[in-house]
């Protein structure tokens, strides 16, 4: 499959990172355009007029937005290379269910912890733990055979989303002072995330710890300031 592929992304965006990982897993050659979110390129605004957000994948001039939609597009378009979604429709439904859960429930809950303090933050932390418990039970039920990696050691969509949601847990610990991934409470989730972040592809795509810590601290203080205003 030929054609020019450009990814408009941002170095610290987990959504952007998901698409990068998918492209790398598939071995697709692409150009990367770093967006300054305070000064978005004219192209980004043209390619994603609805949300004006990253990531946007542009394939032969045609833009696709929304990270999970982009990754399904990549899997359907580049049939060579490892599959990002399983072949079996029921397994695909399970992947879509859990990626939806991770995105809508767990990711949002973690985001709430970042944006709040005091009692509100305590409630948000509690919610993260509730969601992690559901995820732990879910893996036990859905993937009792072992790792959800669909090609042995190759990442699939679900692995990519788990990685982008929980891979930064050490950063969360440092900035927020909360430890989410307790190996005793969530053994399966913890071992899955630990295995994912060690993959060379993931390590390559992970920005330096201090840089992300700095940005997250900055974001958190901006949220708290505007909430207090």
């Amino acid at each position, binding site marked *: 499959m030929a054609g020019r592929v450009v990814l408009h992304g941002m170095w610290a965006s987990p959504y952007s990172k998901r698409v990068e990982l998918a492209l790398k897993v598939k071995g697709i050659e692409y150009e990367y355009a770093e967006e300054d979110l305070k000064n978005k390129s004219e192209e980004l605004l043209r390619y994603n007029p609805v949300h004006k957000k990253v990531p946007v994948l542009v394939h032969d001039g*045609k833009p696709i937005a929304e990270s*999970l*939609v982009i990754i*399904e*597009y990549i899997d359907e*378009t580049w049939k060579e290379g490892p599959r990002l979604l399983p072949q079996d*429709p029921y397994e*695909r439904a399970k992947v*879509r269910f859990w990626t939806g859960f991770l995105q809508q429930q767990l990711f949002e809950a973690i985001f709430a912890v970042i944006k709040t303090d005091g009692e509100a933050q305590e409630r948000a932390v509690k919610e993260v733990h509730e969601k992690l418990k559901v995820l732990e039970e879910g893996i036990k039920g859905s993937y009792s055979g072992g790792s959800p990696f669909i090609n042995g050691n190759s990442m699939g969509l679900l692995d990519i989303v788990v990685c982008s949601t929980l891979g930064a847990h050490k950063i969360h610990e440092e900035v927020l002072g909360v430890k989410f991934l307790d190996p005793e409470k969530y053994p399966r989730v913890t071992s899955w995330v630990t295995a994912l972040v060690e993959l060379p592809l993931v390590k390559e795509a992970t920005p330096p710890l201090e840089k992300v810590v700095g940005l997250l601290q900055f974001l958190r203080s901006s949220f708290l300031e505007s909430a207090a205003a």
Partner: protein
Amino acid sequence: MDGVKLHGTWASPYSIRVKWAMKLKGIPFQYIEEDLFNKSALLLQHNPAHKKIPVLVHGLRPVCESMVIVEYLEEIWPQYPLLPIYPYERSVARFWVKLIEDKSPNVWMVYRTVGEEQEKAMRDSLEMLSILEEHGPNKGKKFFGGDNINIVDIAFGGVAHWMGVVEEVSGREMFDAEKFPRLHAWMGNIKSLQLIAENLPDQGKLCQYLACQREKLVSSSSQN
């Protein structure tokens, strides 16, 4: 072919999406009406993560989340296709489904809240309608899917129908025909389909049900 069961409720727009998809595809199924205040053991077993409807059970395999179910149905029963053939057009359809999924809960919040919370829900609901009106992929077409309805029509059809009831129950107007002429025309087209018209909940009954829910929610929040 294994049997298909759908656990749903008559008052849920999420339930109805799956029903529409199955009827369009001519999939025989058994419908199980769930009482949300007394959920069946089967439902809790099949959807332990959310304990919600709709749940499709195909043979012994449960599939949860309405749009995940619709994609599953599409893959197993390709007749009356709900997604385009080519990846790019599929990605466009999925983009709109995601937008509808992300923004439509604001519509429910309009009848579930009052005051500042309700104002925010109204603003967000109107924003969703504006985006669909301005950018929606149904320009010059009868439906989002062209001449036939597709996954986007299914995703938004339930939301749009319920919106009318939410307006009545909350006394707030959202779906103004002057502000959203294209969407109104689309709604007319959707409701003119016999299959859709025959598979909508009774309007009066739904109004009563949502009004009752609103009363409970609003009075309990004012007591806090």
